[in-house]
């Protein structure tokens, strides 16, 4: 393990070459490695999605066969969910930021942190190894098809099983770190809201992930040994698989979105120059989301043959989860009210997050309503809804973080003007791709279908053209980020948060002396800021 303690060197300069990174226990290096890894997987899954949309440029076969199409949407879903968005913001920015924000020199178990990354790499290799006989089940691996198909279900589900360990270990590390390593004076009611969000995320990772791990082991047992958990012919129940799968996968939606919500809570006050409005409400709503998210999984199964009684119960609780989410949105809006708003690139992505995530969240309520869901279930409406939450929410939050902490992470500035052009392209492209899909869904276009009726052609083509705009936006963003304009100062945005009170990039051990925290992190526009 490389574990040099040279305070004068920043973490980027402290060792060069593959080994100095791959064996490093420095939380910042691990955060950066996660960021690179999820970036590579994002590009891979995005290429699959561009091919899917290209296929839909015309009814019938356009560029690939029906079987290849099935493989492409499975690859897109599995890679996006398990390799990109679940580890996503939590593993990358969580690792990079949490110790800096709480005034610690590292996470509490640095070697376990490195081990988590290695397990993530191993799980990724196994999952991608399934490409030798690509899976065509979709990322949900629903039985009975996942038992019957001749494709490599065992390998891909085992990959997900292994990836789960990485998620659990990272979650444990973050929880204990925040309990044990907070700087003197950094009480729970002064903890940065990103840390609160990461804490709630970690609880979900630790508590929900084992369930999907066991479920996938049962599926492997069913395929390999012919056990009868989910096969009705052997006394099993295929709907039981969906219960177990969604018991994890619905909380997993919040594993994906909660850290992004934490980012928004950090970015908005800085560029509004106002204290965050409703600190405690935002902090506790993260915990409330984590708790309620365990109670709503059955809303994915309203049309799966679930009993009417349990459908009604799940529908009612689903509406409850909208409450803590709305609390966050209203508090963010009030934070900006009468603020001195600076439309930096990071702020633009955060504003887009609020707009797009609200659309994604509200359309989720359509799907939580029993009667509407019967019509909309498994249509493009669901595809649009989840992408407004996952891209409009999580990915825009991630992009906001990438731009906001870019000076801190790399010690350099980027071209704001070009980055804003990339933002405009991405924002427009995203909406052109996915808004037509809401309309397609209400008109009855089923999701995951290779073919479609000619009356759907215009909206499908519009959606495909949108991916081209989106693609250009992504490439421009990448270009801007790869061409820094000059060195960054320690605190270019005048943030009050601890991570900005040190050089950019941060020294290897973060703090020469552990700081004492006396005030709120969000005292913008107050006497505390003027004195700081």
């Amino acid at each position, binding site marked *: 393990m490389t574990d040099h303690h040279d305070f004068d060197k920043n973490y980027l300069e402290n060792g060069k070459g593959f080994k100095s990174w791959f064996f490093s226990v420095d939380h910042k290096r691990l955060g950066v490695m996660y960021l690179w890894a999820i970036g590579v997987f994002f590009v891979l899954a995005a290429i699959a999605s561009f091919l899917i949309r290209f296929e839909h440029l015309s009814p019938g076969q356009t560029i690939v066969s029906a079987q290849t199409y099935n493989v492409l949407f499975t690859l897109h879903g599995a890679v996006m969910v398990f390799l990109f968005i679940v580890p996503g913001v939590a593993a990358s920015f969580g690792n990079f930021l949490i110790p800096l924000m709480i005034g610690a020199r590292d996470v509490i178990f640095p070697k376990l942190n490195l081990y988590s990354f290695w397990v993530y790499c191993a799980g990724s290799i196994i999952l991608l190894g399934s490409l030798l006989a690509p899976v065509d089940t979709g990322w949900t691996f629903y039985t009975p098809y996942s038992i019957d198909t001749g494709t490599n279900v065992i390998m891909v589900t085992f990959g997900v099983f292994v990836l789960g360990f990485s998620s659990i270990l990272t979650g444990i590390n973050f929880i204990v770190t925040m*309990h044990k390593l907070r700087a003197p004076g950094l009480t729970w009611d002064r903890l940065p809201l990103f840390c609160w969000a990461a804490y709630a995320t970690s609880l979900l990772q630790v*508590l929900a992930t084992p*369930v999907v791990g066991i479920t996938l082991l049962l599926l492997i047992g069913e395929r390999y040994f012919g056990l009868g958990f989910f096969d009705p012919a052997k006394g099993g*129940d295929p*709907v*039981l698989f969906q*219960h*177990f799968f969604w*018991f994890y996968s619905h909380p997993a939606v919040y594993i994906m979105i909660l850290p992004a919500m934490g980012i928004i809570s950090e970015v908005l006050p800085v560029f509004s120059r106002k204290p965050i409005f409703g600190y405690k409400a935002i902090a506790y709503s993260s915990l409330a989301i984590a708790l309620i998210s*365990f*109670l709503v*999984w*059955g809303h994915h199964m309203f049309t799966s*043959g*679930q*009993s*009417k*009684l*349990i459908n009604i*119960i*799940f529908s009612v609780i689903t509406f409850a989860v909208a409450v803590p989410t709305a609390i966050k949105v209203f508090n963010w809006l009030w934070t900006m009210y009468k603020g001195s708003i600076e439309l930096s690139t990071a702020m633009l992505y955060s504003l887009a997050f609020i707009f797009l995530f609200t659309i994604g969240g509200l359309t989720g309520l359509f799907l939580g309503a029993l009667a509407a869901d019967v019509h909309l279930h498994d249509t493009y409406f669901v595809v649009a809804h989840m992408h407004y939450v996952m891209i409009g929410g999580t990915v825009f939050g991630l992009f906001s973080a990438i731009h906001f902490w870019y000076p801190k992470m790399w010690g350099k500035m980027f071209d704001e003007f070009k980055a804003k052009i990339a933002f405009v392209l991405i924002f427009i492209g995203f909406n052109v791709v996915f808004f037509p899909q809401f309309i397609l869904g209400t008109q009855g276009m089923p999701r995951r279908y290779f073919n479609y009726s000619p009356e759907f052609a215009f909206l499908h083509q519009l959606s495909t053209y949108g991916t081209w705009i989106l693609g250009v936006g992504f490439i421009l963003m990448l270009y801007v980020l790869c061409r820094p304009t000059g060195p960054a100062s320690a605190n270019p945005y005048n943030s009050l948060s601890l991570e900005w009170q040190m050089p950019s990039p941060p020294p290897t051990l973060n703090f020469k002396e552990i700081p004492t925290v006396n005030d709120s992190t969000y005292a913008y526009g107050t006497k505390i800021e003027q004195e700081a």
Partner: protein
Amino acid sequence: MAGSNPYKTYLNIFILLMFLTFVTVAVAQFDFGALNVPIALLVASIKAGVVALHFMHLKYEDSMTWVFALYPIFLMFLLIGFSATDIFTRVTN
């Protein structure tokens, strides 16, 4: 660890676990009908509880650790409860 000789406690727990293992095997010889699974789960739960309390030191931990230990059990009942509610209230034609 509070008070008494931990090795004596560990030995007693080990003997109790061995005894309960024999109980598990013994009750499996009889058919209790619908009670087969609840009885097996009861014995297994007692064993798991004893291991958590003593070998995993839960008995000597603070209230926060108890919250972290008990909440997953609540979630387990939730998973089983809601899934069972679905299965037992389904209308099949």
